[in-house]
């Protein structure tokens, strides 16, 4: 991770945001004999044992649960990649696959020095978001308004905690903690802090909405960009309004292709002969099965900036 001529792209995301499954599908793509692959690995990475393990799980339709090893120590992955069409090289850094570093950034306000060095040497950012792990800000006034008039609170059997004995009741309410902050606030902070430390603006940023098959179930026609705008509007505004500092694209990625624990989904996936074709990548230009396409896109945006 030292050659400045060879760009490095950083993969970040809160815990359980889909990074592990993406890595497993990417490892499958690189190991596969697919024709017209856009990238290849130039050398085995230091953490091949981990990659092989998650790849095997992925091939056997097993969920990627966190192992004891992952819980005990941080797993960093660096993939050295060559673009087949041009022969250009770049590195994809996935520090802390489990993602504790990134939630810690918001709650504790520090990075480990080693991580800080990785950030400063980076040229682009891939941010993972899981659609079912989005903590909303849920204002009381909006929720009450949706439920009906405030005057009906007692009728609805909800205890009014701002009554006369408020002192006692407030003591029972949840005190503020960083961990309970809305996901979009944490992600804005995550992107902002990284952009501050990466030189060469505008920085190419990709937002990868994982488990895209789940989103499609409820909203079959929604695009990844629309999903971001409606579900994480603060992050969308931040990305849109800071175009001097960053360029961004949004992808919907289903690296598993479906829910392994759902029988119908599993049967559908088992019928697919080429495992790489299980993958779904949705973008502004349509759908494909190419897990490498978001990586190629971030590389091409970086390269276009150089010329």
């Amino acid at each position, binding site marked *: 991770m030292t050659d400045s001529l060879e760009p490095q792209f950083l993969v970040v995301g809160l815990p359980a945001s889909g990074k592990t499954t993406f890595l497993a599908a990417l490892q499958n793509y690189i190991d596969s004999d697919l024709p017209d692959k856009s990238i290849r690995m130039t050398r085995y990475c230091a953490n091949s044992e981990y990659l092989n393990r998650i790849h095997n799980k992925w091939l056997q339709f097993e969920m990627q649960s966190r192992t004891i090893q992952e819980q005990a120590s941080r797993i960093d992955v660096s993939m050295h990649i060559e673009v087949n069409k041009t022969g250009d090289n770049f590195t994809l850094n996935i520090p802390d696959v489990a993602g504790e570093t990134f939630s810690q950034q918001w709650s504790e306000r520090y990075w*480990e*020095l080693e991580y800080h060095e990785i950030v400063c040497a980076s040229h682009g950012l891939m941010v993972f978001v899981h659609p079912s792990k989005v903590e909303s800000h849920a204002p*009381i*006034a909006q929720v009450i308004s949706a439920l009906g008039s405030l005057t009906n609170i007692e009728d609805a059997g909800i205890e009014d905690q*701002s009554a006369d004995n408020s002192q006692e009741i407030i003591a029972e*309410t949840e005190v503020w903690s960083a961990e*309970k902050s809305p996901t*979009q606030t944490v992600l804005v902070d995550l992107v902002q802090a990284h952009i501050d430390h990466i030189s060469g603006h505008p920085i190419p940023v990709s937002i990868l909405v994982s488990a895209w098959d789940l989103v499609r179930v409820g909203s079959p026609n929604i695009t990844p960009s629309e999903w971001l705008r409606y579900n994480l509007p*603060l992050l969308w505004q931040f990305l849109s*309004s800071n175009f001097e500092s960053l360029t961004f694209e949004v992808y919907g990625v289903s690296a598993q292709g479906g829910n392994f624990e759902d029988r119908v989904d599993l049967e559908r996936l088992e019928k697919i002969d080429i495992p790489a074709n299980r993958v779904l990548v949705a973008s502004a230009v349509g759908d494909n099965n190419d897990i490498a396409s978001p990586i190629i896109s971030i590389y091409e945006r970086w390269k276009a900036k150089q010329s």
Partner: protein
Amino acid sequence: MTEDSSAEQDVCHQEGCRFNQDGQCLEGLTIAECPHLRYTLEVSDQEFRNDSPIDLLPVVDTYSLFSAEEFVPESIQEVTFGNKPKLVVIIGEPNSGKTTLLSTLYEQFHNGPYCSYLFSGSRTSRGFERRCHKLRIASGLVRPTMDRTISSDFHFLHLSVRRDTLDRPAEHLLFADIAGERFSLARDSDVDAKRLTILNYTDQCFFIVDGEELAIKNRRFAAKQRLQNLIGRFVQNSMLAHCGEVHLVISKWDKVLEISSEEELETFFIEPMRQRFTGILSKIILLSAQPQTNALQQVSGLDTFFETCLSSKSRQIVEVSITLSERASQFQRFKFRKQ
């Protein structure tokens, strides 16, 4: 270092407080509440000699990020360096709705663009998040409420926004969040009023009054009198002469509509205030930031407040000469940058 020979203690750094002598807080706060206490570890000379320099240095294997908490005057350069923020000061008694107003404005951007502006960042997002907590379901409350600002220090919240046409640079707002007690003191004393020198550097100044107080018949006269005295005190001391614009916000407007009426308040309060402070008050904003009545169920007046904060009428610049030996305060630096 052994625990036996070192002593841990809290030391208060507030001027005039006798906590270090007799344990009594000047403001009557508990140790947990007081923002002036600093934890110190006293180390004896012998210990210092016994430890090697390496042992005494903290192990630094981490990189500190910006705190994202509210700014204090010493730290606002994080925003003022390289930017020209607009300084907004909201002046009102305790519980008049100052913090609720700021929190609700920040909260609007969690739903999407607001008044054709996009959220463009905040260097004090944790400061905002803390303040918003009791407006949210996550707090466990069923009515939005707000913790009172208790520190007598000045705190600042930063919000960066950008017009949705993206044809202009992002604009930076710095909101001063000041405890109402500071203004209660200023109302009664020229000395305390003159201490609020922040007003010399303010772009938009809002006096805020609790509308519910104005609507309740046995409280309205006193509430009106207190506000008149407060504004009058600042006028008497020429404290508003250099502000860009001065406005009046009537908060909890939903309560006014429920208890009284717009016409009644116009006759009793709004028109007399306009008359008394002609040439000083620019806008009168009827604000319902957290409506809790059937009379008004939508946030109202917040858009006018926000657009007024961004309006570009500049404040008058005061000539201040600073000798080379004099240390420029953060606010003075702020002012010069604005020029």
